[in-house]
């Protein structure tokens, strides 16, 4: 056999990726001990097939952990029988995280500043502040038992 002679190379139709939105959903019990595992599990899906910036991964993990802690403790009052529902809506560029609890919600317009010198040594009150600063966008439903956070995927 002599060296084969290349005649032609054809490529099949390569459609411009329609980039569908992928939804990833998960329901967890109101138990703070499952937060860490849930965050790691969802991070796998949020960045499936990608190598995001270290910072992006950090922002995702911290803000999701915060939102889950609020849903479990404030929303569901830590009652393990009350579920928390999480969904990720993944597009090419962004991750939209939705966390819903079974609670009655709260006044989501009322914000406090934990960096105020008067309250700087308080042990609580930094969760939503961190969420607002580490996400690109935050929204709540009217009732206040669903939070939507938008984050980058890269």
């Amino acid at each position, binding site marked *: *056999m*002599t*060296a*084969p*002679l*290349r*005649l*032609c*190379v*054809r*490529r*099949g*139709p390569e459609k411009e990726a329609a980039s569908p939105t992928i939804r990833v959903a998960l329901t967890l019990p109101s138990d703070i001990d499952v937060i860490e595992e849930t965050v790691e599990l969802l991070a796998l899906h949020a960045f499936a097939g990608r190598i995001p910036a270290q910072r992006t991964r950090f922002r995702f993990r911290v803000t999701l952990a915060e939102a889950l802690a609020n849903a479990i403790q404030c929303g569901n009052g830590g009652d393990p029988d009350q579920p928390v529902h999480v969904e990720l809506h993944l597009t090419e560029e962004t991750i939209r995280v939705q966390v819903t609890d079974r609670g009655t919600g709260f006044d989501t317009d009322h914000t406090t500043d934990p960096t105020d010198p008067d309250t700087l040594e308080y042990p609580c009150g930094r969760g939503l502040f961190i969420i607002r600063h580490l996400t690109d966008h935050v929204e709540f439903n009217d009732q206040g038992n669903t939070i939507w956070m938008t984050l980058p995927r890269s």
Partner: protein
Amino acid sequence: MALSVATSGSGITIVRVEGQLIVGNRQELKALVTESLDRGGRKFLIDCTDTGYIDSSGLGALVTIAKKVREHGGEIRLAGLNEDLRSLFTLTKLDSLFEIGETVEQTLADF
């Protein structure tokens, strides 16, 4: 998927299938072999070394191609299949329709 065609020194048309051979692209393979037949090619080797997976339409396309090649008095062989690909031919009993060789080099030498 990408198809590339080469002709060996002994006149065998080697069609290399890179990626998936599935419903969305099987027509390309059919067209390519038909053109080669028209140009007088009679011995074909389908190189599956870099083939990912094949679906039932891809298998169907290979069956159709094999028939056409035989109708022209030609011969077609497959080579370079991994274990998974091979299992598809065994499962569907298409291994009785195709001569399936080992490596491309070996199959070319045996042709």
